[in-house]
């Protein structure tokens, strides 16, 4: 018993120690966010000499007269719409690829994978030309509408892998009871896929929250900026960068991400009770 407890303690100690090493850069950033701008690069100490909240105050004022609060709202809007869009559209495609039978299924699946292999930068210009012809530039449409059409193959593939693991025998009973393809999707596939759908939601949130290249290309007016775009505005190679404000706002921008992760990991790891369906 003693030995077991000691081993447990040792395990906790190791997890914490290693965890601290992992997040050392973040601790450094947190400390830098309370330092004065001049001190950030001139001292190596983790403790600020004169802790100050100025970085947070200055940073929150935002960019070009638009406060950071607005950027948070914009980022939330994009992230939430993207989550809904991805969950709907990708789960439909994944259901078709994993559980339904139709001609050219494998070919279409291969095409779907190939679309993931073309580097983003060469797609960007043709895409931009198309979106500018239909007048969508400087709106959120180029960032959101494609997601309603399952353009994120990563999630389709992820859901396919997960749905293939749902036992076919399990689906046979309702089928015999006369449930149609759609009812099986809604009442069995979707609930059983909750852990995977939560993964899709978390990743979509994080990735759209952090994405900068396409947001930078499509959004120009500061009132439409997102958090990740606004953060980039603090650093400028030719002028005076506001490092303190950058670190302060970077810390704040991690809060929603961390919050989402902590709340949703329950569903992710612990799943939901599926006993009733399994019976």
């Amino acid at each position: 018993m003693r030995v077991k407890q000691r081993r447990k303690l040792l395990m906790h100690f190791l997890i914490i120690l290693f965890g601290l090493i992992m997040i050392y850069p973040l601790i450094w950033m947190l400390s830098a966010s309370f330092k004065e701008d001049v001190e950030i690069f001139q001292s190596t100490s983790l403790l600020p000499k004169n802790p100050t909240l100025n970085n947070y105050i200055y940073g929150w004022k935002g960019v070009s007269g638009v406060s950071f609060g607005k950027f948070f709202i914009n980022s939330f809007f994009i992230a939430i719409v993207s989550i809904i869009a991805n969950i709907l559209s990708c789960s439909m495609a994944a259901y078709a690829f994993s559980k339904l039978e139709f001609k050219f299924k494998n070919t279409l699946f291969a095409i779907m994978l190939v679309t993931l292999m073309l580097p983003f930068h060469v797609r960007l210009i043709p895409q931009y030309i198309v979106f500018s012809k239909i007048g969508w530039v400087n709106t959120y449409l180029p960032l959101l509408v494609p997601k309603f059409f399952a353009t994120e193959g990563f999630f389709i593939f992820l859901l396919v892998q997960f749905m293939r693991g749902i036992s076919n025998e399990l689906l046979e009973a309702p089928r015999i009871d006369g449930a149609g393809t759609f009812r099986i999707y809604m009442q069995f596939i979707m609930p059983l896929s909750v852990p995977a759908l939560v993964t899709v939601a978390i990743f979509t949130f994080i990735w759209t929250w952090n994405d900068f290249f396409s947001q930078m290309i499509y959004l120009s007016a500061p009132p439409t900026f997102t958090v990740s775009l606004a953060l980039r505005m603090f650093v400028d190679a030719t002028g005076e960068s506001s490092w303190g404000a950058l670190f302060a706002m970077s810390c704040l921008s991690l809060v929603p991400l961390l919050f989402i992760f902590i709340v949703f990991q329950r569903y992710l790891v612990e799943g939901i009770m599926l006993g009733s369906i399994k019976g």
Partner: protein
Amino acid sequence: MKKYKFNRPWEGYAFLTPWLLGFLLFTAIPMVLSLYFSFTQYDVVTSPKWVGLENYIELANDPRVHKSLQVTFTYVALGVPFQLIFALLLAVVFKNNIPGIRIYRAIYYLPSLFGGSVAVAILWRQLFNKEGAINQLLSLVGIEGKNWIASPDTALYTLILLLIWQFGSPMVIFLGGLKQISLDYYEAAEIDGASKIGTFFHITLPLLTPMVFFNIVMTIINAFQAFTPSYIISGGTGAPVDSTLFYTLYLYIKGFQHFSMGYASALAWVLLIIIAIITAIMFLLAQKWVYYDE
């Protein structure tokens, strides 16, 4: 196991409609256009001029293409396995309900929340530069460190470490996959008196293979297209002396900084073919080891 057929043929297409539309509207057009550009001289502003295979011939003889392929293959070959092994180990540890587990998971996931934020560049420098934290640690044991991030022989490895550091996504996917494994299997194993390690190799791992396969395929596809790490840390140059010149970074330099979008498109299609071949091989091999509990 008998094949499960229950849908009418058109129902498959019905569920696939959003994807098909999205593919035709938002993906296919840009892809076809970029394929066309790859056979042209296209400076982005004036209209493309057809040059046939010229771009492809030029890139076959471009020493910076060779260098960037070497850098990218090293990055994939070293970064991907370590990242995935690390992610799998931690997923297995974090699956259990030990006290404080939620906090631990969150801490270990934190680095991955960062993405390619501008702050990462500066943080990485704080770790790996001459006076960085790593060297301060080394000096405690009397080793004089070097400038890891700016030396041609070590710069790439700091980027590989960055990839491994951000192992959160595959970890989460493994966690989801582990959850899907029915407890019945473990109960059966316990009754048979299997050891923990035996259970892992004979039950957990085989049942997790769909997710392992997914993670391998996607991490490789994404690592081949890695751009942000080198873009933010080398300032978009691939410095020092091209030692962090990722393939897509070179593509970006050609297309966006040198206005050779035709050449960049050719580079992109060559990469697509490389990735497609590797992915196809992985799918062929998968039939031998990936197990679907259908």
